[in-house]
């Protein structure tokens, strides 16, 4: 079971969190004219890397904050967690 450091609450076991997928995917701004390809890239297409993966987690059974986790998809090692507005 992963141990994830919520930037707001501290270290907690994974069962308090839910996963939110690739955090490098950015939703295009509302009303912005974009190509079909840009939109499809946002909705469906993923880098799906082996190794370092920046992803979202949600502290559902805690503070209910979404935050970013930098994690290795091969070893599951977590390098860093940060608030959404932090680098």
């Amino acid at each position, binding site marked *: 079971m*992963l141990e994830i450091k919520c930037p707001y609450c501290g270290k907690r076991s994974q069962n308090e969190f839910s996963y939110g*997928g690739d955090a490098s995917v950015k939703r295009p701004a509302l009303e912005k004219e974009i190509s079909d390809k840009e939109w499809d890239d946002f909705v469906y297409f*993923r880098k*799906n*890397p082996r190794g370092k993966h920046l992803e979202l987690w949600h502290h559902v059974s805690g503070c209910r904050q979404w935050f970013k986790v930098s994690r290795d*998809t091969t*070893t599951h090692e977590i390098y860093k967690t940060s608030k959404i507005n932090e680098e």
Partner: protein
Amino acid sequence: MQKYSIFSLIKNAFTNHENWEVAWKDPEPKKEYDVVIVGGGGHGLATAYYLAKEHKITNVAILEKGWIGGGNVGRNTTILRSNYMWDANGLFYEYGMKLWENLSQELNYNVMYSPRGIINLAHSDAQLNTYSRRGNSMRLNGIDAMMLGRDELKKMIPFADFSSSARFPIFGGLMQPRGGTARHDAVAWGYARQADSMGVDIIQHCEVTGFEVQNGKIKSVQTSRGNIQTKKVGLCVAGSTSLLAEKLNMKLPIESHVLQACVSEPVKPFLDHVVTFGAGHFYCSQSDKGEMVMGGDLDGYNSYAQRGNLPTLQHVLSEGVAMFPNLSRLKMLRTWGGIMDMSMDGSPIIDKTHIEGLYLNCGWCYGGFKATPVSGWTFAYTIAQDQPHDLNSKFKLNRFSSGHLIDEKGVGTKTWIG
């Protein structure tokens, strides 16, 4: 090639089994092939076999990074079925079932196809209705399906929780009688042996490191054992598809996730069907060795590690015990994980790509094992004819842009929810 039979077995017994031939050779890669299949798993081996058998293309190499059959074909729960709602899936997998039915004889290798019936338990009337929609769709597609009532189920699986203490009582179930299991390793080995005998080169411990593409056409494959010229490359590397696609500057509608499975210690057979739990995600059958073979949900985060964590198994086994309370006193013997290509609508991709000569076979989610024959068959057709067969014509890569999604579960792009 030696023919396998009871007679050859007896004959060889008298020479102490010292005269058996190798099941497949271990050749050095040639400089050039007509077709290169990347990935020596079930789908890759089947594709090579059908290329040789159906399309007479035998100058084929299978490149496998490790040992053949070491990926998901060797780490699944061996379930075969075609109990799908959407036509694109139903008709495809049903053709697969027909291939399964003759596979042992065709390959002269006992893959132990066992049509013991797969039962999906339902725990409410609403769920029964959802299953009816699927079951009726199957029947109208010519696929076997039947509804079972609670009383019928009590006779078939009396050890299931029919008591008043069940949190989600069993209301009934949908059964596909021809669904069942097969011996997973045998499938890989059987295809390998026949493909090898028709001239296909099975090259193990050969990692693909890159591709050479010129003017939009595939030219060669770079490997840890040198460059191999070819005009056609088929990718059959579910679990790692995105990694090879990256070498081709392609992004795919796929995420890799780890799925765990486990077996109990062997016990005398008491479960003769494959049964799935409807108030959760759990499936279970009992192998011919007596082990309960069990699986369920993904670990739920992107992963390329063939290992998972215990809470997922705790969750899955709690579903198992909710379904069959007697599992509680058995012991979990072995657990393992496999990497799934989770596609964004839960259905596979078997298609050409924008690169001429590059073909894609991926996105199998949980369901790749049962598809092995039909995936190989249709992919071989697609490669040989340079166009999809009717059966895989809906499994296009561009369906994500066009909106022709094939979403069996209706959960959308959150692949980790499964």
